[in-house]
Every structure is written in C-alpha cells, then in structure tokens.
C-alpha cells in the first residue's frame, strides 16, 4: 500500500465533463520525507517511513531529533509507515510529493473524525429516542429505553450501546476518485468528503 501523509485543506465543488456538480475535498498531500527505509534483511519486512508537517525542535524528544537528523530533515509532526514501496528506489532523505498519485484513479483516505464530546445515544448510535412528547413521556424524548431483561440475566450485557464520548475515531473513506492534481502546490482534489476538520492530518493510500 503506497501512500502519502497529508492535510485537509477544505471542500469545494466542481463541474465535471457531464455537467454534474461534484462535491470535492482539497487535500495537501506531501511533500513527505523518507525518514527510514525498512528492509527484509534488517527489519523482517519492507516499508518506508514517511514524515510530514514540521514541528518545533523544543517540542521534540532527543530520540526523535536524532532520528530525523539521520534523514537530514527537520522534526516532523506525523510519521507513518507505508508498505508497498518494495523496490529500493527510495533512500532516507528523499522527498515524495503528490506526483506519486495519478489523475482519475481511486484512493483511500484515513483520518480522525471530529470529536463531538459526550453525546447521548440518539447522536452516538442512531437510536430513535422515544418518538413522542406526550402520552406520559415526562422528560425522556431522547432516552435509550430498556437496557435488558430483569431476573434473567440480572445484569447488563457487555457492549450495550450507551451515551459517551463520541467522534475522534479513526475513519477511512474508501475509493475516492481523484478529480485533479495540482503538483505545483502539492494539492490533491478528490470526490466526496474525508474525515476530520480542516487542517486535520490524513493518510492517503493508493
């Protein structure tokens, strides 16, 4: 699985050749620096470790600084390993940019969804709530209802869906069509939406 690390820039819409108005997401994909090359002999598997997004030196540990110094680059915020770069065509310090992707192909984009805080079951699990404001429903319009039966099993089953922290999950948007590449500014325009806020980090893979 070859890929790059990127950042969500925002959304827009464009007309395609059929005249359809297509909702699109703009992603800044790369430039990513190869921070480590993992090989079969040394690490047991082939992979490239890519770094993206600068961070301050004072916010990095000494171990990180040493690691990035080896690749002759500044400390990176996000470091992700990609398999699929099997050949030895890359070495540490190389820069990969959006030209890795081709126009009119399909990509998968992984990211972290927006955090929604502590939410009830209606928002969190799609429960329908009570569905009525009257007929004896005093204050439970969005309540989850019963959690289970009584004397058997005398407990609440594990995994019962309840209220709680919502969002900020790892989410993958699959098979997004590449609408356009703008290599000059490392921009990638894909059809549809991707998880997370503007400026959120994304892992884009072929």
């Amino acid at each position: 699985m070859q890929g790059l690390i990127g950042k969500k820039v925002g959304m827009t819409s464009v007309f395609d050749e059929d005249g359809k108005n297509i909702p699109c997401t703009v992603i800044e994909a790369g430039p990513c620096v190869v921070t480590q090359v993992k090989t079969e002999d040394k690490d047991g598997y082939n992979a490239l470790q890519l770094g993206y997004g600068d961070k301050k030196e004072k916010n990095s540990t000494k171990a990180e600084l040493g690691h990035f110094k080896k690749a002759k680059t500044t400390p990176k915020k996000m470091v992700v390993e990609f398999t699929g770069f099997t050949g030895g065509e890359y070495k540490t310090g190389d820069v990969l940019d959006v030209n890795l992707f081709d126009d009119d192909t399909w990509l998968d984009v992984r990211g972290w969804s927006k955090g929604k805080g502590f939410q009830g079951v209606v928002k969190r699990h799609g429960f329908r709530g009570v569905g009525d404001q009257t007929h004896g429903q005093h204050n439970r319009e969005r309540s989850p209802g019963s959690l289970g039966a009584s004397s058997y099993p005398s407990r609440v089953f594990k995994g019962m869906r309840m209220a709680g922290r919502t969002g900020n999950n790892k989410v993958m948007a699959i098979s997004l069509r590449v609408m356009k590449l703008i290599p000059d500014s490392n921009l990638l325009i894909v059809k549809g939406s991707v998880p997370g806020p503007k400026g959120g980090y994304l892992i884009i893979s072929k």
Partner: protein
Amino acid sequence: MNLMNVVEKEYAVTNNFPEFKAGDTITVHYKITEGNKTRIQQFKGTVLQIKGSNHTQTFTVRKMSGSIGVERIFPIASPFIEKIDVNKRGRVRRARIFYFRERTGKSARIKERKY
C-alpha cells in the same frame, strides 16, 4: 486559506456574463438535453440574491408563473448556462431581497436604476 485560493484559480470561471445584482431582471438561457436533443430554455425573473464566491457562486432568480412564484438557483459555473441577458437594472437597498417574496401586484415593483 492560501491553498484554497490556488484551487479557486484553477477552476476560475471563464464565461463572460454581464454583471448583475439583486433586484435586476435577467434572462438566463439554459441548455436542456432531452434524449439526444438539446434546446435552450429561457428563465426570466428578478435576482433575489447572489451567494458564495468564485466558482461555487450561485444566484437565485424568481419569476411569477401565473400567480405562482417560481425560484431557480443557478450555479455561475454551470456549463449549461448559455448566456445571461440583463433586461432591467433595479434599485434596491439590500443585497438579498427576500422581502420581495411577500410582495404581489403593485408593491412587487422595483424602481429602475438609471445611470
């Protein structure tokens, strides 16, 4: 937003439509494909609002079809818009004239803007 500007430049609208504002009366010549035949439909009405910016900009046109009001929203970058004619420049004080929806008859007149 800097990178968004790059995208806007990439998709910049190239059509040369005349400038119009809310309150103007315009005719939109809209291409309609039926089967394999293409014809042009005209939609003449008052511009209620212009929304958005750059290639995602849209405008709303309202016309009275008999006694029923019909509103259509056109994207400015739509490839189906053949051309736009400005029939009358209207003098209104607002950028969005939603109050116009409640007006009928004599009160639904807009003064013409003279230069």
